[in-house]
């Protein structure tokens, strides 16, 4: 289906509006949709990240020479397929990869989760208690004392369990 606006590109954004009770369907390409101010849902494409990274690199030549001794993966090859060849690549491509990861992971560059052998268990009662405590604080801030009293009772019940 062609974009209804430019009639050139393929329509990939499909909108359904209700205008005065009438359903209106529009089919637009991403460019026309964003010109109209419609936020197009975009997934972070690794390729985009990689391309923008490489454009910003002055030492592309240097980078092209690096190959992982364990799996033979080059950075250019990684760039074209988006997949690494072995765990060692994370060290071999070090700085180049750090920048890719930072962009793909919303600025994060360090793992903070569990390590092998660690066990993360979630206690539903504890979670529920945290939720009630938070809602209780909010209720008190909003001066909704009726709700606060209910929440306090629920917390009490939880503690006696």
């Amino acid at each position, binding site marked *: 289906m062609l974009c209804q606006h430019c009639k050139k590109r393929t329509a990939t954004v499909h909108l359904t509006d209700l205008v005065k009770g009438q359903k209106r369907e529009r089919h637009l390409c991403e460019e026309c949709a964003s010109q109209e101010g419609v936020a197009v849902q975009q997934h972070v494409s690794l390729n985009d990240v990689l391309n923008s990274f490489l454009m910003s690199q002055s030492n592309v030549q240097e980078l092209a020479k690096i190959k992982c001794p*364990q799996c033979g993966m080059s950075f250019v090859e990684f760039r074209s397929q988006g997949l690494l060849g072995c765990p060692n690549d994370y060290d071999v491509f070090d700085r180049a990869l750090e920048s890719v990861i930072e962009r793909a992971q919303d600025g994060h560059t360090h793992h903070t989760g569990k390590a*092998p052998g660690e066990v*993360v268990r979630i206690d539903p009662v504890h979670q529920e208690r945290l939720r009630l405590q938070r809602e209780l604080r909010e209720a008190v801030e909003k001066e909704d004392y009726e709700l606060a009293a209910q929440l306090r009772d629920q917390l009490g019940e939880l503690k006696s369990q």
Partner: protein
Amino acid sequence: MTLDDLVHSSGEWLATGGPLNDVVISSRIRLARNLTAFHFLSKADPAERGDIERTLFEAISTSEFGRSTFYVDIDKSDALDRQFLVERHLISRQHAEGEGSRGVAVSATETLALMINEEDHLRIQVLRRGMNLDEAWNEMSQVETALESVVDFAYHRRYGYLTACPTNVGTGLRVSVMLHLPALKVTGEIEKVFRAAKEMRLAIRGLYGEGTDAVGDFFQVSNQVTLGQTEEDILSGFKDNVIPSVVKYEQETRRALRQDKLVALDDKVWRALGLLENARAISSEEALFLLSHLRMGVVLGRIKHIDLEAINELFMAAQSAHLQKRHGGKLDGEHRSIVRADFIRDRLGRARPSPN
């Protein structure tokens, strides 16, 4: 237990009940892991792929949780069986369409599936009905702990668990919650959800994950960031923030539709039922579209004689590979549409109380 035993039921996780089930269909958790002693799959030759599959199969089948699983060799399965597993959400499309040694271990209840040699050596998936990430995580944690006691997963002091694609590195954790959002879709309010999701670095996808459209008003919300947040942070973002807000938004929009646009709503819902009860040939897309409207009618109490369970089951049972497995062999598109229409009429007929 084999694949054919699954044909006449839907997975336990698709049954109704479960928290917030008027909007939340299912909660899914996935962990990506790779064995430390092997290349990632893009650099593994066929022999190494075979070794990876055997190592993981062994680790799974000797673990306690593994005893209740059965294994499907995807490389040796025919196209119909592979499609059947995709429709049941037990493997990804990528896994179905891939090449070389690969498989999936599935628990009898279908709440646990371990894909071997998909993009990573191992992808563990745990499913629960409704909004139930805590339970899903605790099962996941047991499975992962059991496996970590017998195999070494690639782990980096700085980047955490290593994955073939750096977008999964760190926790390797992907949380996906499947939502039914017909009211937000029909009013166009869904665009606001998309915008908010984008700001929060969440992805919204269709019924079958990556690269699929949101058919039948089903949307999967999942995290994109896997590094720099703890497992608990990621999970609580969904439980305490994202999902409750979207659910509330959908519920309020449904309420508003019922109040201000009752005739239009009823028209949509009853037309859907009329078509489903009378069509003699129906495509899978049209069936999903109409079932979605019907589901909205049932959860809003506009249709009372059909229960949610029957509809949830139809979403899966009316799909192509399911129809063909029940039929006992391949059907061309035209015959599938006819068999599908017959099947839906039959199920809805049974859901209807008899006239006397």
